[in-house]
């Protein structure tokens, strides 16, 4: 099964600073909210950002995609993110669905909500052909369950993303979470995102050391 349809030799479109994120989840996991919060964090960081949902079915459990673009100038483009710099996959059961890896940039980063290690996920085809793609896993559902009492992975994944990319800071993510979810809910979400950030940083350091 072809796992990925890569953007080979993508022409420089003159907007090379634009950074595009595609989030895949299931209805109810908060992929759209995560895209929105990511855009708020990027905006708070001084950039321009745009977040919007995909136009598919709106059922709990159905595959959902959401998009976030970040740039150092106003964003006019309205097409879905076709060539993501980063993929945030909120549900590992989506990994082998058509289109999840579509268009991923050859140096793209992938963060997957899973308790397993990246090499246990059957993505050898992807990483074998595209050695510059970085795949990281994070048990976001477990972290969410500990802090929020339910396995809502969206804010947690943003904490993990902040550790993988310098497009947003962890402080920006925490602030966006606290603004969106007031009071103790915001605090729990922020704690969960912070734990995710710390976990992914440790994972990365271990990988680099090895």
């Amino acid at each position: 099964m072809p796992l990925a349809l890569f953007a080979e030799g993508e022409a420089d479109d003159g907007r090379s600073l634009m950074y595009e994120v595609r989030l895949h989840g299931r209805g109810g996991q908060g992929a759209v909210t995560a895209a929105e919060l990511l855009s708020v964090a990027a905006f708070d960081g001084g950039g321009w950002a745009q977040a919007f949902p995909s136009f598919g079915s709106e059922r709990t459990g159905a595959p959902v995609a959401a998009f976030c673009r970040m740039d150092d100038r106003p964003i006019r483009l309205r097409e879905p993110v076709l060539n993501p710099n980063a993929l945030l996959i909120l549900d590992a059961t989506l990994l082998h669905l058509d289109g999840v890896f579509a268009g991923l940039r050859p140096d793209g980063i992938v963060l997957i909500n899973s308790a397993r290690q990246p090499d246990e996920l059957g993505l050898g085809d992807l990483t074998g052909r595209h050695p510059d793609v970085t795949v990281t896993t994070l048990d976001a559902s477990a972290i969410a369950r500990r802090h929020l009492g339910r396995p809502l992975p969206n804010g947690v994944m943003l904490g993990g993303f902040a550790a993988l990319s310098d497009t947003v800071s962890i402080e920006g993510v925490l602030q966006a979470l606290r603004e969106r979810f007031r009071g103790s809910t915001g605090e729990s979400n922020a704690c969960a995102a912070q734990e995710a950030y710390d976990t992914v940083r440790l994972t990365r350091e271990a990988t680099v050391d090895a």
Partner: protein
Amino acid sequence: MPEQLEGSVAVARTVARCRPQVVCAYPITPQTHIVEGLSVLVREGSLAPCEFVNVESEFAALSVAIGASATGARTYTATASQGLLYMAEALYNASGLGLPIVMTVANRAIGAPINIWNDHSDSMSQRDCGWLQLFAEDNQQAVDLHVQAFRIAEELSVPVMVCMDGFVLTHAYEQVELPTQEQVDAFVPLYQPRQVLDPQAPITIGAMVGPEAFTEVRYLAHETQLRALEVIPRIGAEYAEVTGRPGGALVSAYNMTDADIVVVAMGSVLGTLKDTVDELAADGTQVGVVGITTYRPFPAAAVRAALADAARVVVLERAISPGVGGPLTADVRGALAGLSTEIVTVVAGLGGRAITRPSLRAMLLEAGRGALDLLTFLDLDLPQIQRAQLTGAGR
């Protein structure tokens, strides 16, 4: 101060700053967040005095808006898709009575088959109902157009629709700068109605008019619409003075220098189009973009002036008139009457189909070669059509 907001939230907060006294709307996707936002502002008292009226349908929503506006209240509503169609009879009453209601249309396809996503079928189906129609390119423009819409509506005594693409804009988070309350208060003065329904001094409005005067009534309505072609740019210029941001115009133009081909479009696709023609320009192909901000009244002279030097015009339609092609094309063709301009129609993005740079780029390059048919459907899935025809579903 710029904020990162959902389009619907930005519009709700902006409408509130225009101090409507009555808001009456029935929720329908993708407009719901706007009226939910307003209902919260009314409930918490930050939009006051204002009555938020709950009703059982869009027909009732606009009927209440008509009643409220007739008594002299600044009145706002919002809808989309089948909701706008359910209002259809009342739409004509609002314009016929000269009531300056402002309504957001969160543009959405019309069923059957049911589809909640974006195209322009809804407002396009009501293009002749006597309302002004302004189309927003992004959420900043949606915000700015709403403020101007109240001024335009009240100055001309006509209702105004502000059309913004459902989901693509209503559900998009992006940077928006809301005009401050002080700016809006300076720009939109208290509503001074031309006449009011008042039990103390009863009058009849909308009474029976027979053949002896009906044509004249419609003539005057047409004349009012044409006056809007003067009023909209003037109010737009005033808005620019107050806020420092561009005000509403009739049309916009982009990358027109040396452009033999010009693409004409409305709404949020203009952003993707501009990025696409920038890429084409980098490769040495100049394609201009003309955006129609004011669709009703149709600014024929401005469109003709903008397209005067174009050899080929591609009209990108977000709606279809089955059996004809594109409704916007007919207006553009009329505006260019007598010129030798080649005009083709491209129907794109129906029911939420994404309009992408690669597709636009390929289409525009084909247009440059003169290879486009008079009517093209962008990204048409031919095998799907053939399957439907084989099973009889296409009949």
